[in-house]
């Protein structure tokens, strides 16, 4: 029974209703090369030495949604990533933004997981943590696959909504705004659930010195887990085909030809 929005009766502790309405929030983040980094391919393999690493940009929006959720309802936000010790810096970046707990999933033999393996490990960790809602970016900036969020939800047996641009926080669930043909739809969803977050009106916050000082002291909780055998194998890798050379025009007499090419071939005017 609710009175002024507050449940009454049958509670063993006077603050139990508060505890129940403060969800355990998880946010999945991925370490990716800076989206403006110059990617060098050496002998058919990507050379990532010297590349600056960042939190995948859509994951920054996911962190922002998770932090806003906590600010609206209370609770705690656990940032989770899967990767080797280099990813501790990624988690600390999340801590500097305001996440409460940091979990890194890793063990020997996880160097070449496929999507199925990644999703299984993440789903297992979320289950163990007892999270009620999970936020993640709609796609990672490196692979741009967009499979992790829905895949994790599937393995957990949870409902999920993809490409969410805005979230409002309710007791026991959320309302999510998603783009649909011709406009936007508002979708209600109960816990437990997973949302993949798109770029929306709420720009991700910046860190501040206080957050960075907290991050310095933060501990990363390392966990292993069970990964199923890979179900796919990479047959070959190749670099993108070289771009054909551009066309060069000289002299004012070629202006009509340039205009025509811009209109009919490049479709930019």
């Amino acid at each position, binding site marked *: 029974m609710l009175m002024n929005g507050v449940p009454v009766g049958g509670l063993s502790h006077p603050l139990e209703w508060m505890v129940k309405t403060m969800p355990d929030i998880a946010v999945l983040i991925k370490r990716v090369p*800076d989206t*403006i*980094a*110059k990617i060098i391919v050496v002998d058919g393999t990507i050379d990532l030495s010297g590349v*600056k690493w960042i939190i995948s940009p859509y994951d920054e929006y996911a962190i922002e949604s998770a932090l806003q959720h906590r600010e609206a309802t209370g609770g705690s936000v656990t940032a989770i990533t899967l990767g080797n010790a280099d990813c501790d*810096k990624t988690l*600390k*970046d999340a801590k*500097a933004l305001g996440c409460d707990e940091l979990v890194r999933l890793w063990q020997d033999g996880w160097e070449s997981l496929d999507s199925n393996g990644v999703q299984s490990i993440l789903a297992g960790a979320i289950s163990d943590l007892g999270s009620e809602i999970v936020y993640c970016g709609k796609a990672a900036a490196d692979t741009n696959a967009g499979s992790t969020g829905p895949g994790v939800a599937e393995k957990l047996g949870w409902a999920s909504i993809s490409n969410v641009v805005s979230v409002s926080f309710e007791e026991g669930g959320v309302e999510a705004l998603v783009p649909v043909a011709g406009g936007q739809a508002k979708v209600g969803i109960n816990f437990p659930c997973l949302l993949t977050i798109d770029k929306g009106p709420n720009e991700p916050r*910046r*860190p*501040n*010195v*206080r957050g*960075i*000082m907290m*991050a*310095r002291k933060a501990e990363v909780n390392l966990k292993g887990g069970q990964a199923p055998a890979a179900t796919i194998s990479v047959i070959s890798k190749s670099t993108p085909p070289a771009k054909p050379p551009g066309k060069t025009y000289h002299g004012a007499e070629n202006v009509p030809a340039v205009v025509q090419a811009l209109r009919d071939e490049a479709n930019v005017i």
Partner: protein
Amino acid sequence: MAYEGLDFYDVESLLSEEEVMIRDMVRDWVEDEVLPKIEHACREGIFPDEWRVALGEMGVLGAPLKGYGCPGLSYMAYGLICQELERGDSGLRSFASVQGSLAMYPIWEFGNEEQKEKYLPKMASGEWVGCFGLTEPDYGSNPGDMITKAEDMGDHYLLNGAKMWITNGTIADVAIVWAKLDGVIKGFIVEKDDEGFSAPEMTGKHSLKASVTSELVFQDCKIPKDRMLPDVKGLKGPFSCLNNARYGISWGAIGAAQACFHSAKEYALSRIQFDHPIASYQLVQNKLAWMLREITKAQLLAYHLGLKKDDSTWFAEQISLAKMNNVDMALEIARMARDIHGANGILDEYCIMRHMANLESVKTYEGTHDIHNLIIGKYITGIQAFTRKLD
């Protein structure tokens, strides 16, 4: 191409993870919020108020001060903050230098408990802006001869005089003013609404255009007795503030130099003359190599001075050398970068001319280039050459 700071000797590997995170925080903010707006701010001659708010929110004001809501960072981190701010603009770094090193620091170091509690938290958050009044129209390099005086009127002090070239003056809520009380230099905290105090903005600058520069005028300015800094007298007070600010400038100049170097490199690689990028010509490569050499030396100098600041083994002449060398280096790099940019170098499409004009001020303020040479000359010879009697 995206900005990557030149780091030829991998100084980054010597920094703590926290210091790198703070540097990147400020770098990203400058990239996203300052650089798209700086040329407009210069044309309009304004310091955007949103930058004050953002600096407070990031928590970088008064960086190395501890307690009273201040960040409590290392001097190394403070240097890195200055470097990144000045890659944006010297005016932006000046705002932070004056707020932290010249206005907050004297309260933190020489103020009483009540003064610290009252002013420092609001200044650290950026809610209150501070300025520093030492230089006078007729007394720049020799502040000991200042005219501004304070009189003890029993229940209050009366200030009379004028200060000039005061960064942040017109927008300041709090001014740290150095004035002679019975012939002895003392520090006073003046608030913007104090009777007899005004701070008209100076106009017509070709340098530091995105920074507020003002006069401070005291005409029978009444201030309460509890606004004098109790724990300092003489030039030690202002000079100790200037040491911290000059340290920050030695890092800031690297940021301005980096901005010019980055622009010159990109321009040289893309500008085609005689069928080839000008970067492929030996004369241009010689200039770029000189820039890299000087920036690298300046980085190592600033880094080592940062270590000495953090373990309190520095002395003032070391700061003089760093300020003098690094600003001189940055100004020469700005001029050389303008040369590489050809006629394009004078346009505000590029950062070059703005940094060059700014650095002309930076070379002169907070101890002129020549005065720092005299400080080092005295260190070498034991003979002061600042003043003499002429027949």
